[in-house]
């Protein structure tokens, strides 16, 4: 038990002291996972909308693939992204392996199918006639897409939360493509793994708490957005 109390005390101290290293790690985590989630929102919701509005051969297969992708193991993603970004890999010319950009790429690969899959379910849950109703009210195609997204905003924000939650908490891909380099690619999860393996439980605790607070804060914000205007 002492270990836990000591860890808590130390964590609080690090937080209150605004330790620059901890702040940097926290900020990088937020930035990397935030950007990755944003990219996934654009790609994932775009994909979900394409699947929801169009009929095409092989649609079921695509949906099945996307749904499978929702459970993609981060280490597998990490492996593939590493191979792609390797010096003589297909994307090696980018030279971004072991940089934050590589982590963003890997996390976007993880979050896109989550947001696409849940987003598609959200859009398919709308009344089937709604699309025609919107068009008959005189909407252009972009206006229709916007109104459909607005109508499905509650489950869509849930999809975004799931995507963000998935990447802020993953460690496998970040450590493989980022390398946990101090001052450059060290994020909260990779730092926690490292400190724990070194026996620095107090620091690991501190980082974990920050991670939890971060996840809570972002989700609280999204929940606020989601539930706004739902007074009933």
């Amino acid at each position: 038990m002492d270990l836990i109390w000591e860890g808590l005390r130390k964590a609080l101290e690090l937080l209150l002291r605004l330790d620059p290293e901890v702040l940097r790690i926290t900020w990088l985590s937020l930035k990397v996972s935030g950007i990755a989630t944003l990219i996934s929102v654009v790609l994932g919701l775009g994909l979900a909308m394409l699947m929801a509005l169009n009929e095409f051969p092989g649609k079921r297969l695509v949906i099945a693939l996307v749904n499978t992708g929702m459970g993609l193991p981060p280490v597998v993603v990490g492996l593939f992204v590493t191979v792609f970004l390797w010096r003589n890999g297909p994307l090696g010319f980018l030279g971004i392996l072991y940089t934050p950009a590589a982590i963003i790429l890997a996390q976007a690969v993880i979050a896109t199918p989550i947001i696409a899959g849940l987003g598609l379910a959200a859009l398919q849950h709308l009344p089937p006639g709604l699309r025609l109703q919107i068009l008959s009210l005189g909407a252009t195609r972009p206006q229709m897409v916007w109104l459909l997204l607005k109508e499905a905003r509650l489950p869509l924000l849930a999809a975004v939360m799931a995507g963000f939650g998935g990447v802020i908490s993953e460690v496998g891909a970040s450590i493989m493509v980022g390398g946990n380099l101090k001052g450059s690619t060290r994020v909260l999860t990779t730092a926690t793994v490292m400190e724990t393996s070194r026996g620095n439980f107090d620091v690991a605790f501190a980082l974990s708490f920050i991670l939890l607070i971060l996840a809570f804060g972002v989700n609280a914000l999204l929940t606020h957005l989601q539930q706004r205007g739902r007074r009933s």
Partner: protein
Amino acid sequence: MSRETLLQVRGLALHRGGVPVLDVPELDLRAGEVLALMGPNGAGKSSLMLSLAGLLEPTRGELSFKGAPLRSRADREAFRRRTTMVFQDPLLFDATVAQNIESGLKLRGLSPAERAPQVQEWAQRLGLGALLQRPAHQLSGGEAQRTALARAFVLRPELLFLDEPFSSLDSQTREELIEDLGRLLAETGTSAVLATHDQSKAARLAHRLAVLKEGRILQIGGLREVMNHPEDPFVATFVGMETLLKGQVLSCQDGLLSLRLRKGPADRDLVAIGEALPGQTVLIGVRPEHVALSLQTDNTSSARNAFPGAVTKVIPRGPFSKIELDCGFFLAAYVTPQSLSELDLRPGRAIVAAFKATAVHVIRTEGLDTEL
């Protein structure tokens, strides 16, 4: 009628998975008229309506609005801005009543200051004045459909499509809404196409009636014309002509037909208005509301046809009851609750059914010997 043609359809066909679901070679909608599309479920009413509204691209065919053909997507988009549609489900947005009513105006880029008075006006006209700030998901079925109507009327559409807008409502709410809709259509002079499977309710709103079956228009014409002169047995039963009988023409003089029914144990003769050749077989229809029931033959009545018979079934139908009779042939009649108790109508009761010669509609005189 020399009124302008609003919407013109030529050679419209729709295939789904290679199977034809619509085949409408020609259909014209005139300005200011309400056309009802009637038919059983699956007859193609909704598909036709969506095609007319530019929401479903037909396999073949061309639509013209006020003489201008709708060919490109831009044409159809522009057309959709001058028309609108109300569906069976209100399909309201997850927003307040006011936000719902103004949604179409917003899509057209009107400013809040331009929208507000129009929203006010139409909320009032549909009795939603007190509900403007209420979230749509808290509305009753009738209120929700009223909101959907306000959202449509506020756009002042040149043509309004109504796809069974009342069928999911309880009967009292439906009655009120049909009345209000009739009033609004008349006040605004809005042209409309109304799909329905219910001949009695919504047909009250229509000027013309088209009866659909299996994707084809069997008959189209003025409301009374189709109701009273169905050209086809299917149309006849569908517009409520419940008694259909086959008979042979005995004589025809000055438009007065004498017919012998070919059903039942004994020959029954009746008189009808119409033209046919002696010896011809004809199909005749009698609307149940034109059959009068009494306990004995009344010689003073102007009804030329009177048949003694017995009640076989009493079916309550809202404001009246439907009585099925066996007069040597099948006959259906509608009676009020008052008559029901005065005549003590119940199965087995002996009764005299009477109807005028003008109540007998000769439906078709060809091809009957091979069919039926």
